[in-house]
């Protein structure tokens, strides 16, 4: 059972454009939603995270938008750069519970 659905699975964006990755979850007990970035041959690394008490969180060019009623959240990468080319995973968990459920991943390619 895929509790966190992520789309698209691949994305090609031109340099300077906006990359948008969407995720939807089913378990209303989830209360922490991190995004991880993974470069080839490396393990994932935390990029940005949000809790459902806020609707948006911004860190530099990266923004998470969160819609609690729709059980959806998304990652926006503004002014996308070739160095952003990587695989992005959304994830969800609930406080105090160790298991983190990941989305299937989105392979982003930013072309010059």
């Amino acid at each position: 059972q895929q509790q966190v659905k992520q789309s698209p699975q691949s994305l090609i964006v031109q340099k300077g454009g906006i990359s948008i990755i969407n995720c939807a979850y089913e378990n209303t007990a989830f209360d922490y939603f991190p995004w991880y970035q993974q470069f080839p041959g490396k393990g994932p690394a935390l990029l940005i995270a949000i809790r459902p008490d806020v609707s948006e969180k911004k860190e530099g060019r990266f923004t998470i938008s969160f819609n609690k009623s729709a059980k959806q959240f998304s990652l926006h990468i503004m002014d996308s750069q070739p160095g952003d080319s990587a695989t992005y995973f959304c994830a969800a968990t609930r406080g105090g519970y160790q298991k983190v459920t990941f989305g299937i991943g989105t392979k982003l390619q930013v072309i010059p």
Partner: protein
Amino acid sequence: GAGVSQSPSNKVTEKGKDVELRCDPISGHTALYWYRQSLGQGLEFLIYFQGNSAPDKSGLPSDRFSAERTGGSVSTLTIQRTQQEDSAVYLCASSFGVADNEQFFGPGTRLTVL
């Protein structure tokens, strides 16, 4: 300080053989996680440890998979009688404790079962 390390980085084995994958977490991290990453399957949770105990083993695919952690530090994931479908990258992560703390991932072990 040093990050999470995993060994070996690559492992090629024959079907039916047993393999052991090792994870050295960041010093002081009490929680340790194992994930499997297969092509097109995302990150699949296998097991986590809080200290030396494993409260949640629900992700282990079969009884051929087992894991242990000793001294609250190093962990070993063992796959017995490997099958071709076990081929994947096995990732280890550690964190200070609860899951809403950042998980720091190692580079993974790429396992190929021939």
